[in-house]
């Protein structure tokens, strides 16, 4: 960001905007670091889960928002990471820090294998195939009871905060997840503003032209799928750390659909879409339960419809519009 401002390439007005953005980001980071010391453990847990979903949505955003593909099966990759971590810790007795890269690698490999249909199918056809992956997962997990614990699932000890940190368990988990989320954000950002990111955008916008420019379509689609699965797998690993329990019922088709809905509502292809989507996925289902205990699904669905009416480009688009008109008001006044 600093080098960007230094060149002054975007002219004086954007330079001011960049300074504001820098200030806002610093303030946000401070708030995010201070939050676990101000809130009760349950709220800290909720924020941790927002970050977990954010990581998964960063992956989904890479595929759907930037790659122009669709996946109704990302809950499955989330589950692969979650179960992979649980199995490594439960059966293998692996120390938890190792499980994050391992779970990410496993999800990447499976994403690469299942990414083959993504190279040939478009739109609804791809949606159907990925949906099938999500549907077929739960029975599979129940089937291999000796490894997965069947319907009962697996219960694990959560990562303990090291003594030097002086943190409580919920705070430690929060900072672990925050660090992972920031890393995911940075990796994703670097990827997108590179030659590879441009190639993905090109494939999304116009496949024919992209290929004429020398972009290998199948390779980029499949790699986008695998990288996207990797982020979901990493999020699944964080989930297992935070919850300390996995069972098949946590990873039904519903999870996949909620993730995709969360992303669309957060803002497809928008930088902050995954975070806003994570907030939505975390808070709106429980919020709708508070509104009406009998039919939380109805309220959830209605809220989605309302958001899409008010903000067709997602919450990120709404925030951008609000900031824009706020800036205009400031300049006038």
């Amino acid at each position, binding site marked *: 960001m600093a080098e960007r401002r230094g060149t002054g390439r975007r002219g004086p007005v954007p330079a001011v905007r960049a300074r504001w953005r820098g200030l806002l980001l610093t303030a946000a980071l401070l708030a995010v670091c201070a939050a676990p010391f101000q809130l009760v453990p349950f709220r800290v847990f909720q924020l941790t889960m927002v970050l977990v979903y954010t990581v998964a949505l960063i992956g989904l955003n890479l595929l759907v928002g930037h790659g122009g593909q669709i996946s109704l099966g990302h809950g499955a990759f989330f589950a692969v990471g979650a179960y992979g971590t649980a199995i490594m810790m439960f059966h293998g007795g692996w120390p938890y820090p190792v499980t994050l890269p391992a779970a990410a690698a496993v999800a990447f490999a499976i994403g690469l294998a299942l990414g083959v249909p993504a190279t040939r199918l478009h739109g609804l056809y791809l949606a159907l195939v990925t949906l099938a992956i999500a549907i077929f997962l739960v029975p599979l997990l129940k089937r291999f009871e000796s490894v997965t614990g069947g319907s009962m699932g697996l219960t694990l000890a959560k990562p303990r905060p090291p003594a030097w940190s002086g943190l409580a368990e919920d705070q430690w988990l929060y900072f672990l997840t925050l660090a992972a989320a920031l890393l995911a954000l940075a990796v994703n950002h670097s990827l997108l503003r*590179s*030659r590879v990111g441009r*190639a993905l955008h*090109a494939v999304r916008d116009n496949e024919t032209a992209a*290929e004429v420019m020398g972009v290998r379509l199948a390779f980029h689609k499949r790699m986008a799928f695998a990288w996207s699965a990797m982020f979901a797998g990493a999020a699944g690993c964080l989930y297992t750390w935070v919850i300390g329990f996995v069972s098949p019922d946590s990873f039904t088709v519903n999870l996949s659909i909620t993730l995709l809905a969360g992303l669309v509502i957060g803002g497809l292809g928008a930088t902050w879409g995954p975070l806003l989507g994570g907030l939505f996925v975390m808070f709106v289902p429980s919020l709708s339960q508070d509104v009406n205990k009998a039919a939380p699904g109805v309220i959830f669905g209605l809220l989605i419809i309302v958001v899409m009416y008010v903000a067709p480009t997602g919450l990120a688009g709404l925030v951008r519009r609000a900031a824009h008109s706020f800036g205009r008001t400031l300049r006038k006044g």
Partner: protein
Amino acid sequence: MLEVHELTVRFGGITALDGVGFTVARGAMVGLIGPNGAGKTTLFNCLTRRHRADGGEVRYEDRDLLAEPPHAIAGLGIGRTFQNLGLFPRMSVRENVMVGAHHHGRAGFLTAALRLPRVRREEARLREEADAVLARLDLAAVADHPAAGLPFGTLKRVELARALAGRPRLLLLDEPVNGLSHGEVDAFADTLRALREELSLTVVVVEHHMGFVMGTCDRVVCLDFGRRIAEGPPEEVQRDPAVIEAYLGTAA
């Protein structure tokens, strides 16, 4: 540089190209004309491997072009623009042009995600090159604008810039001045002539605008119903009875 022999393409029962053949010498500028549906764009799509040829041969710099995969064409030094704009509308003008130089980059998923120093150097180089092309085509002012919602003539120039960013030796232009105003057509012709000199380009251009073709091309090939009906210097082809008939129906 480019030799097309007996090229045939069929779509179902329709023969889009029927044994078409012509050659393009290095440094030449060849106009490809013919009524709508004559097979001009199909020919371009064959050269860039968008369509499979059902027969015939295309040799480019002593290489069997039809054996190359579609994504390798850019790397062989062939650039192209599209009839109805093939830009990436949600990317900025600069990014569009940088995609044009895709095959000059090496960064992969992993090296890009880690933002290695050589990726950063490569990125800076690609950006510099793109900015140079944008400046050359008077597009520096719109570099950060999305490649949509700009005047049509500007978008056409963006497409040319994107094709040039790949540093092609052979440039295929599909109706580059279609939809431009008179002034814009003249300006585009001047730019193209200058670029051809500067970059020692070989150009094949599909165009309906006869003034443009006659003013810029040194050879013209005329297609009709998938067949080559005339070839030669512009003024000769223009007088060819077969060409006149193809355009106007029965010769008067």
